[in-house]
């Protein structure tokens, strides 16, 4: 029947449209709704065409735009009301045929102005092929004639489908190489291993998909400070879901990570001091492959930055003991999200000590910890004394710049020594801290000698002043005598 109608259109021109319209009224409602026929003549005709001419019309009948009463001419131009093909598809009357690139954006922006404004400022809106042609536009993600509401399960940008839509380009190495050779293309593979990915592929649309973190129309380059996934914005982006107790209720995980992180050493470094090397959520959990680090991997995760500490811990007797007891290596003493600044109180057998969590009061381990703590305390006392002497000498105007410069090494030694604690080995610890004692002793001697020198100078000055004054007085009397004699 389609071929029959087509023949009529082609052979009898616009006269035949009248007959065709009448005929179409007779077509059963299962093929075309009466509404369609009455409003959009483009659709009416294309529905009865074949192949590539028909397909858009068929798809469009389920499109949200069609359902909202938007005709083909809204995007393609021309006159949808005209039953005359020449008039309906007259370029002089504004018919543009298939819109490309910027044309698509222009057309969509007529109604979706906000989305358009966000898109043109986004990384996608600003990427082009090099000759000015944009590499993607609205239809790249939303489809062409079968656009459905985002919430609809068949939408290309629905939570469950968006990963596939994004990875359509982003997992295509040869495609991505053309436009952004530096970007990785393994996001999907990583995502599949993440908790988010595993849940989403099991139909959980609540978990994070690409748009949850990157945004949608306004996606910015990760290096752009406005990007939701810019290093300093990552914690608040993750916190949108992970800090929402109601939203996370069914997952039964804590929702105070952000609050803890904010006041942690890492959070303060990143969010307050702006140190972009400080870790945000993704540095430890991964980004596309986000998952909580396991007992076996936690040392590796922390060791990414704290490599030396990791190496020391791996060689320590704690490594095996922690594994056996299923204790989260670094997190056992330092916590996870709320890592606070370390203090010397963390070792030994004091109230704030972490050692006493596992060690009994008299066991060998606690004795080592107590010895380490006492060494550190003594060194700190010596450092304070040395610094007091150096400052006192300096206040007296003595040059102690060399001693001050050498004393800077004490900080280095203290940092090293505090790190060496991770070995949990007294021999290695004393080897390191003794260097500190040597430097401090040298500084103390310099300080004491400078102060002594200060008094020697004063005494020297006093003696020379007295001597000169005596000579002055003697001279004065001699002069008086001479001048008296003369008068």
């Amino acid at each position, binding site marked *: 029947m389609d071929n029959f109608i087509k023949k009529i259109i082609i052979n009898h021109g616009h006269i035949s449209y009248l007959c065709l319209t009448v005929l179409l009224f007779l077509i059963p409602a299962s093929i075309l709704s009466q509404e369609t026929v009455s409003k959009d003549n483009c659709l009416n005709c294309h529905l009865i065409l074949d192949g590539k001419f028909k397909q858009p019309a068929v798809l469009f009948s389920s499109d949200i735009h069609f359902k909202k009463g938007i005709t083909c001419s809204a995007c393609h131009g021309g006159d949808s009301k005209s039953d005359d093909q020449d008039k309906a598809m007259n370029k002089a009357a504004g018919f543009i045929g298939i819109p490309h690139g910027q044309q698509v954006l222009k057309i969509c922006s007529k109604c979706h102005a906000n989305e358009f404004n966000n898109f043109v400022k986004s990384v996608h809106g600003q990427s082009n092929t090099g000759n000015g042609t944009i590499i993607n536009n609205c239809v790249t993600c939303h489809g062409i004639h079968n656009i459905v509401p985002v919430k609809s399960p068949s939408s290309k940008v629905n939570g469950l489908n968006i990963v596939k839509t994004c990875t359509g380009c982003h997992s295509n190495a040869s495609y991505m190489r053309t436009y952004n050779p530096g970007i990785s293309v393994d996001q999907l593979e990583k995502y599949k291993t993440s908790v988010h990915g595993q849940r989403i592929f099991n139909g959980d649309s609540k978990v994070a998909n690409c748009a949850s973190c990157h945004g949608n129309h306004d996606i910015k380059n990760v290096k752009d400070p406005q990007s939701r996934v810019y290093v300093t914005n990552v914690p608040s982006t993750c916190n949108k879901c992970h800090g929402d107790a109601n939203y996370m209720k069914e997952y039964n995980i804590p929702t105070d990570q952000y609050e803890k992180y904010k006041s942690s050493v890492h959070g303060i470094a990143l969010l307050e001091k702006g140190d972009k090397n400080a870790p945000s959520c993704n540095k430890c959990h991964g980004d596309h492959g986000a998952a909580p680090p396991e007992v076996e991997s936690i040392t590796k995760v922390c060791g990414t930055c704290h490599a030396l500490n990791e190496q020391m811990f791996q060689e320590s007797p704690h490594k095996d003991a922690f594994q056996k007891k299923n204790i989260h290596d670094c997190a056992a003493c330092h916590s996870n999200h709320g890592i606070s600044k370390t203090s010397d109180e963390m070792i030994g057998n004091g109230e704030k000590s972490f050692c006493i969590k596992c060690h009994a009061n008299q066991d060998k381990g606690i004795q080592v910890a107590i010895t380490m703590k006492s060494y550190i305390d003594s060194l700190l006392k010596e450092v304070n004394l040395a610094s007091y002497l150096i400052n006192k000498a300096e206040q007296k*105007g003595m*040059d102690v*710049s*060399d001693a001050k410069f050498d004393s800077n090494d004490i900080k280095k030694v203290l940092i090293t020594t505090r790190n060496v604690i991770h070995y949990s080995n007294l021999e290695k610890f004393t080897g390191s801290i003794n260097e500190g004692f040597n430097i401090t002793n040298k500084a103390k001697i310099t300080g004491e000698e400078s102060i002594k020198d200060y008094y020697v*100078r*004063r005494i020297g*000055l006093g003696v*020379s*002043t007295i001597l*000169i*004054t005596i*000579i*002055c007085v003697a*001279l*004065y009397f*001699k*002069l008086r005598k*001479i*001048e008296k004699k*003369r008068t």
Partner: protein
Amino acid sequence: MSIFSKLYHKIDERFQINDLISFMKKKEVPLYRGTIWYYFGGITLLLFIIQVVTGILLLLYYKGSADIAFESVQFISAKVKFGWLIRSIHSWSANLMVLAAFIHMFSVFFTKAYRKPRELSWYSGFILLVLAMGFGFTGYLLPWNELSLFATKVGTDITKTIPFVGEYIMNILRGGEEVTGATLSRFFGFHVALLPGIFIFFLAAHLIFIQRQGMAAPEDWDEMSDKKKINIPFFPNFMMRDLLIWLIIINVLSILAVFFPWELGKKAEELAPAPAGIKPEWYFLFMFQTLKLIPAKLSVIDGEVFGVMMFGLAGLFWFLIPFWDRKTPRGKKWYWINYLGIFVIIFILVFTIIGFIT
């Protein structure tokens, strides 16, 4: 005969020391309320001698190269035995020498001691003061610290404003267009070789003139009655008075050096931005401050050029006082000269104070 008398006799036999002593004994110095001003020449000389001695000692360790000049001064202050004292005395005596020279100059000015027949003493003394300021200017850069680098930049920049030859002179002083390590080497050379050579020549002339002509008597000396005219022999009376004051000065100098050691500051970095509070040495401050206050443009001439020219002319005018003061040598009182001197002192004091507090 004691061993000292024998030794003296042997030296006198060869060098006729007795002749010299009898010459000095015959030489007399007027004793009146203005006699105190006579000591400032001697004080300046003492401080110059201290400069020479401490300068030679500093030379044993100082390195005149931009890479290590600062470190060498640091080494002198921190490591060399009594290095801190030598350096501090050198710096303090340099400043006190310029101060004593200024006082000496003004005392000569107000007592009109420049009048005939002592014109050459005035001219040579004025040249010595300018050379002493040159010593100060070149020596200020030698520790190669931040303040001295930028003060030298500002100071040498001023020479650029001298019409026609300014830029040429600036390049000669700097050893290039900018103040660099080349400037340091050059200033070191000026400070320890060129300036001392010239200075010694004028100093010798100045001292010979004084020895030949004696101390200038006050203006109204001839009109005074013989009873009031008191003279003391140069040797031993005046020399002992001089010695007494020298010892007091040495005492003051050592107290200053011990209680207020000269700071070294931060090492100069040629590419670093200028720090706040760049000021030249205090004896250049009145000129620096005046140049700062002159508007950038005065009619057709640049303010700075005008200022430099005015200071140049004023200096020349001051230098030539014996030439244009024709009244004083004829025994006439010319109070305008005193007013001019008071104006100059007030001007220097006011602008130096403004320079310090701003």
